[in-house]
């Protein structure tokens, strides 16, 4: 079977990449270069079935790291746990394929937190307490002003 790599869509796909997260399995066929850059590495030769169909699951050491929480892509692939909300951006390439495998979709449908409501004063207060804790007094002052304006309007 010859087909193009699902990532670069140029070279011939020669590696079947399998990711198992919480027991849910997703597969894709990549060329060797794309597989390595996506953080996959060859599984032990014992498990190799055919040359063109070997299973890879864990990842390469020199690879993507989330700049916010320092989680490495390989750690995520191993544990199935992301480190922080920013990981979704940092690993978006790999995640898109993984999510398609798990959910048969990679886009959210439905409501979001900003919908069905206006800016809430309690949320501003939360942000204010955070700003004070982090000693970001400029932000804190701005938030305090916003809260005052809303409270005045409400009264």
């Amino acid at each position: 079977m010859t087909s193009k790599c699902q990532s670069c869509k140029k070279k011939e796909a020669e590696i079947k990449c399998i990711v198992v997260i919480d027991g849910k399995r997703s597969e894709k066929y990549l060329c060797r270069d794309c597989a390595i850059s996506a953080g996959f590495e060859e599984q032990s030769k014992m498990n190799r079935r055919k040359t063109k169909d070997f299973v890879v699951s864990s990842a390469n050491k020199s690879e993507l790291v989330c700049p916010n929480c320092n989680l490495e892509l390989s750690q995520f692939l191993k544990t199935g746990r992301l480190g922080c909300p920013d990981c979704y951006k940092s690993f978006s390439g790999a995640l898109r394929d993984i999510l398609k495998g798990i959910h048969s979709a990679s886009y959210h449908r439905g409501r979001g937190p900003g919908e069905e409501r206006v800016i809430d004063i309690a949320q501003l207060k939360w942000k204010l307490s955070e700003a004070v804790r982090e000693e970001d007094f400029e932000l804190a002052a701005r938030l305090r002003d916003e809260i005052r304006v809303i409270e005045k309007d409400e009264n």
Partner: protein
Amino acid sequence: MPTWLAEGGDDFEVALFTEAVYVRNLADRPFPGRLQSEDLGTTRRQLTEYLGNVLAEYRFIETDRLPNEEVSYLVERNSVSSEIIERKEGTGLFITDDESSWVSLNTSDHLRFRFAAGGSDVETVYRKARNLEEQLENILPFAFSERFGFLTARPTECGTGLFLRFTVHIPGILFSNNLPALRDSLLKAGSTIIPEVNPGISTEGHLFTVQTAHTLGIDEEEILEISQDMISELAEMEYHARDTLLSKAKYQIEDKILRGIGILTHARMIAEQEGYALANALRLGAAEGIASETLDLLAATELYLIGKPAHLIALGGKGNKLEMDTRRAELFRSYIKLEG
């Protein structure tokens, strides 16, 4: 037994209970698995402060201060998710007195909240869960992206971050070897079925968890539809299988159940595995009116819970295996109806 479960519900013969779970995280910090001890403590403190008003009806437990058997006790009765056993540090739990609702802090995600009701009751659990979700959304900045929806530590839960699940008793489907067919059919419809996990028991029991499988690419209404379809399909399949069994293998089934009654009424020691098998048989008997003069459906359901190790400890302290098995047999006997 938690009081909410003692009320039973629709299709209680098959569906023990229904749960709706939302998973939510704060936008401004790593998920709990990547937080240092100090930040876990800060996050818990802030969350308890902020949630205190909304959750005025709940009591709060610093779960990392609880001894292991008390945590196991909560896990056994579904009053906190089992992942708390992996890592207790910095975790917390808001829970109502009837235990039907709880909000856990700092397990895999900053917040997981669950609502439960006896039998099959998607509407009630979803309505209550959604109501709390909206209240919390108003006071907390949740991690959200346009593309991936609500962001969760496990990519299997991102998107709506909502799932519905049922704990079901399906001896009919198992005896008639229909589990593979059910599994395939549920998978196609967007849900999964897994055996209930019991650390002390090696053989597969008759209790399973059926859960909606997807959170991304479908909205909440579709998730509800899937869950309602899957429980009605499953219940129908189970009732049909039981009818067939009771007409074709009446004596084998009755024999199994009535032998169970014999053990229940006369055994002086019951091991954990035997207790579980007994609950499997007696619950089927109670549901189908076989020996129901000895044990009713609620009592038979309670046997599952009461026989678990942390529950036995909670009811009489720690002991060796002999003492535990004796206590289990004694407790089981106390559920026999006094007047036949």
